[in-house]
């Protein structure tokens, strides 16, 4: 008899709990006092090397050596939970920003203000995501978000300019849909990725994650429904992750796509593709576009070794120094979270400009709901899918998901 994966996967976690109960911080106490253990999920290029450079630089500056472990992205949270039950948390931990509050709520993280770290100069949204219950638990050097990529060649041939409003998005996408090519591609998959892509449309129109059964959110969802119904976007958007969306755009199967700057490297592999990046269209001309911000933050877990935690905090501070922020931003195609540094980064990577412009208005996914965010995110992608292919009107789909 097999009880699904739930307990098969929970087994190592639970056994980990058994093994570590008596250890009480043994994991760190056993280590060299001048060695900091670092855990992150930057296991792909260019992230791996760029961050290795930044980490090595900070190790020298703080006067410690580091032991770095990079796990695959989807395995990080399970790894953290396992380590927190066996009391073998690393000294410096990277977390995806929407996960910070969840982990902070468990008590596994140390408030950074205890070590004199502050948030002067950081964009407000970024600070929101790193704060739980009024305490700061993380510092995030760089961020990313999504914008509208467009195929310059296709636009030139059609004599069109990139859309700036929803109405223009619909007409432009319809005009550029031809043969095997769709006008626009985005990800509406049933995962947090689908929710993340829907948020700029929902938030820019005044929608709110606390209650999604509102006319504002319904209008945003109607826009996506219209794009599908007009045939301007493939029905496959409901299964496409952002990687699939990028593949479609790269292959010329979509004239526009909603995606982020982490695709620059992949898009450069197609030398025939000329593309530009503009902000996501606003509901009305001149409206403000509010996008979610992505990227990872650095935290100091509660390891029980005060001295080491102080060193770890110093290390996190160093990762957020002006010089390192710009290095990480330029090296990994991300944007500094402190607007004062964006000019330096954009001067070196001009394509980042559309993303950098949005930083002051970026909103944190967990800013309002905190650790309740996963439940709300699930409601949002469920409603989106029900309206796109489940035969429900946006209003009904949102109402049902909200009440669910």
């Amino acid at each position, binding site marked *: 008899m097999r*009880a699904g*994966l739930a307990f098969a996967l929970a087994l190592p976690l639970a056994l980990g709990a058994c093994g570590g109960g008596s250890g009480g911080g043994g994991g760190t106490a056993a280590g060299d006092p001048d060695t900091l253990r670092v855990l992150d999920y930057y296991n792909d290029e260019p992230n791996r090397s760029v961050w290795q450079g930044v980490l090595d630089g900070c190790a020298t500056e703080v006067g410690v050596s580091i032991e770095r472990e990079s796990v695959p992205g989807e395995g990080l949270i399970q790894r953290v939970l396992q380590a927190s039950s066996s009391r073998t948390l690393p000294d410096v931990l990277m977390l995806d920003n929407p996960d910070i509050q969840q982990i902070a709520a468990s008590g596994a993280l140390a408030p950074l203000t205890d070590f004199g770290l502050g948030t002067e100069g950081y964009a407000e949204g970024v600070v929101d995501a790193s704060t739980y219950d009024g305490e700061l638990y993380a510092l995030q050097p760089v961020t990313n978000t999504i914008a509208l990529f467009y195929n310059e060649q296709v636009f030139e041939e059609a004599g069109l300019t990139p859309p700036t409003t929803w109405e223009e998005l619909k007409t432009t996408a319809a005009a550029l849909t031809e043969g095997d090519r769709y006008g626009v591609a985005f990800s509406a998959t049933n995962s947090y990725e689908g929710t993340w892509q829907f948020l700029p449309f929902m938030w820019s129109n005044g929608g709110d994650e606390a209650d999604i059964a509102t006319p504002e959110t319904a209008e945003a969802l109607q826009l996506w429904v219209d794009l599908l119904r007009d045939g301007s976007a493939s029905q496959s958007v409901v299964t496409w992750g952002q990687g699939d969306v990028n593949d479609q755009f790269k292959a010329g199967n979509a004239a526009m796509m909603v995606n982020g700057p982490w695709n620059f490297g992949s898009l450069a592999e197609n030398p025939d593709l000329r593309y530009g990046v503009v902000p996501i269209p606003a509901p009305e001309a001149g409206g403000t576009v509010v996008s979610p911000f992505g990227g990872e933050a650095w935290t100091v877990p509660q390891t029980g070794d005060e001295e080491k935690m102080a060193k770890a905090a110093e290390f996190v501070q160093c990762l957020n120094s002006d010089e390192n922020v710009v290095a990480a931003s330029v090296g990994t195609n991300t944007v500094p979270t402190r607007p004062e540094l964006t000019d330096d980064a954009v001067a070196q990577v001009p394509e980042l400009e559309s993303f950098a412009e949005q930083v002051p208005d970026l909103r944190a996914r967990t800013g309002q709901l905190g650790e309740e965010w996963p439940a709300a995110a699930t409601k949002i992608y469920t409603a989106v899918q029900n309206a796109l292919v489940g035969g429900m009107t946006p209003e009904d789909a949102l109402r049902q998901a909200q009440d669910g």
Partner: protein
Amino acid sequence: MADALVRGGTSAPAAPVTARPGGGRRGRPGRRGQRLVEALFLVPAALYLLLFFGYPVVKNVVMSFQEYTTRTFFTGEAPFVGVDNYVNVVTSPVFDRALLNTVLFTLGSIAGQFVLGLAIALFFQRRFPLSGVMRSLILLPWLIPMIAGSAVWRWILDADNGVLNRVLEALPFVDAGPQWLTSTSLALVAVIGVNIWLGIPFNMTILYGGLQEIPEELYEAGELDGATGWRAFRHITWPMLRPVVTVVLVLGVVYTLKVLDVILGLTNGGPANSTQLISTLSYDTSFRQFDFGGGAALGNVLVLLSLVFAIVYLRFNRRAVDE
């Protein structure tokens, strides 16, 4: 074990009657030693079962009655909440859908896998040139890691550029290829299809093995009585294959109920929950929403489904055999 107990039992009254302490002493340690050795042989298996089957099952049942969240991992506190987790998961709007999908997915997969597996096994019962090579080729789906397999199937089934729809659209009477994985009405059919493809090698291999065990003489004798073709299958092959069929079906249902990777790779339960199963819902609840108690409760629902099926099937089968 039972044998040792019986022998131990008969010796006990014998010892005082003979009143020969020496003899008793000689005999008892020997028997006791033997019993000890026997017990020691059982220890590894018992430990293994306890550690890898007993512990997880008990832990999972306990977890399903606790509020087990990310917090629990750090604090170790998991307050008992009675049947709240069960009430929450069973009353959630997705549960009914997931339960129905699980039943349809299991029935559809098993029916397809078994019928096709049996047909192929019967086909390979005849010897013909290259039959050995072809039989090994049929095992291929079994050898491909499911993550790779489902990625390839996603491409094949892609509505716009997938090879299946490209072929279909080339036919004169097809306007637009079906939305295999992206329409709520077809997605479940498509994932069942992929799971059938995946299950055929298992069914074929076991059934082929069973067919090899049926003595050739039975068919020869049957032929003399005029039982060939369908009648030979109905009256010789099927009754002789019954025990193997039982094994294949019971294992097949248990394997299919817990299928997770196929769905995660193809549709992730979507679109609009149309391929959401209890197993994927359990995974999602535990590892995406961090509600480990709710995930454990769903896992137990799945165990219960397996148990109910196993009991019903074994009962039914025993009666059939008794008759």
